[in-house]
């Protein structure tokens, strides 16, 4: 479903991703963890080309999107992304946030997009907020709307970049609950998070990154109980302190 082949990324002189090979099968849930600045965001943003790799290939659903004239906007329609800062459209109501892209870029009829939109809002527990503006919602509510917004495009893949890191502690669980629920759907998920409970519960695989490289890759129980790599051990001991 997703294949990164030999990805390098430079920001000026800064070598941020170093020869990354990363594959995700259809329906697989992968959690990426690692210290701040290790390149997790850059990696996940290469999957939908928000970040353009300096070299290497990105394949999504059989299409090489790094190729010249690849249908990037088309492929992005099938990849939902949830950001740390929510990034809801503040000038649109909650429901308009959900319907804008389906109507505009997928040509879905407005009534249909609203109908499926309400269904997803119900699923994330925010049906009653359909006509509110994002500024009137709590952080946890905004992030659940952001998830519903991504889902209303009916994506095959969902990317999450630290979706709970900007939230007050009491709001983290409501967002994780939605993500766990979503994981049961069989959708392909790539999640950057330090929520170990979530990783243990849903991840098929945990990837540990450090200094622009993937340095460990294991099933969650193996990774958390017996990390092989010294830096991974150090990192885990800091988180669980």
């Amino acid at each position: 479903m997703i294949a990164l082949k030999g990805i390098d990324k430079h920001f000026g002189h800064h070598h941020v991703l170093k020869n990354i090979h990363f594959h995700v099968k259809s329906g697989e849930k992968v959690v990426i963890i690692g210290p701040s600045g290790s390149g997790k965001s850059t990696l996940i943003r290469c999957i939908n080309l928000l970040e353009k790799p300096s070299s290497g290939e990105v394949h999504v659903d059989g299409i090489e999107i790094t190729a010249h004239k690849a249908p990037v906007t088309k492929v992005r329609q099938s990849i939902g992304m949830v950001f740390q800062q929510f990034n809801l459209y503040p000038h649109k109501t909650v429901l308009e946030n959900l319907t804008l892209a389906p109507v505009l870029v997928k040509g879905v009829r407005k009534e249909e997009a609203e109908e499926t939109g309400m269904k997803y809002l119900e699923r994330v527990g925010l049906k009653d907020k359909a006509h509110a503006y994002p500024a009137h919602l709590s952080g946890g509510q905004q992030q659940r709307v952001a998830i519903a917004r991504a889902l209303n495009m009916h994506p095959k893949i969902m990317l999450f970049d630290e979706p709970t890191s900007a939230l007050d502690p009491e709001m983290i669980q409501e967002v994780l609950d939605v993500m766990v629920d979503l994981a049961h759907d069989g959708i392909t998920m790539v999640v950057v998070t330090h929520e170990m409970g979530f990783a243990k519960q849903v991840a098929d695989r945990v990837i540990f990154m450090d200094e622009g490289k993937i340095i460990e890759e294991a099933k969650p129980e193996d990774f958390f109980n017996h990390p092989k790599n010294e830096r991974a051990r150090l990192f885990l001991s800091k988180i669980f302190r």
Partner: protein
Amino acid sequence: MTGPFAWFKWEALFAEWTVFGEGALMTLAASMLALALSLALGVMFGVMSTSHWKIAKAISRIYVEFIQNTPLVIQIFFYYHGLPHLGLSLPVFSIGVLGVGVYHGAYISEVVRAGIQSIPKGQREAAYSQGLNYVETMKYIILPQAKRIVLPPLANQAVSLVKNTSVLAMIAGGDLMYRADSWSSQNLYYGPAYVTTGILYLMLCLPLASLARNLEKKAEVHA
């Protein structure tokens, strides 16, 4: 010896009030057309200056720097005296609209650029991640948000623009300032002529200025 504001001078002015009325209408018409032109140019060059396309950015930069760093009067004289040598003679009214529109377009371009840049980059990323292209992202996500920030300084630009149409007087443009100049240079009734002219400009500009203040207040409430 009579004073500069002697009553008979006012009487002469009231008798020929249409001179000033027509001038005010001319100024209003030139202002509206120049404003439309400057908005079109300002949005276009403002958007270009934030694009990743280097040529578009460079063109926008050159336009803004060139226009902002030369006096408006010289620009007007260029259209009036210079363009005919290049085979293009425009009527004075068109020169006024063009000159003032192009001049304020450069300032509005900077206002629009600042407005676009004040929108967090997460907005663009969210739109791109959903499959919107550059134009759709600008049109539906970035510009509507930038509009709220940009409106108060735009209304202030409109005030300056109305006042700056008075450069038309320098090329016999038939605007309010020109009418006041020519009327009073014949009869030397400068006092009433310029007081009246000032009041007429005030009547054109005050509503715009208070609009700007209201928009600013609104923007603060929303922020």
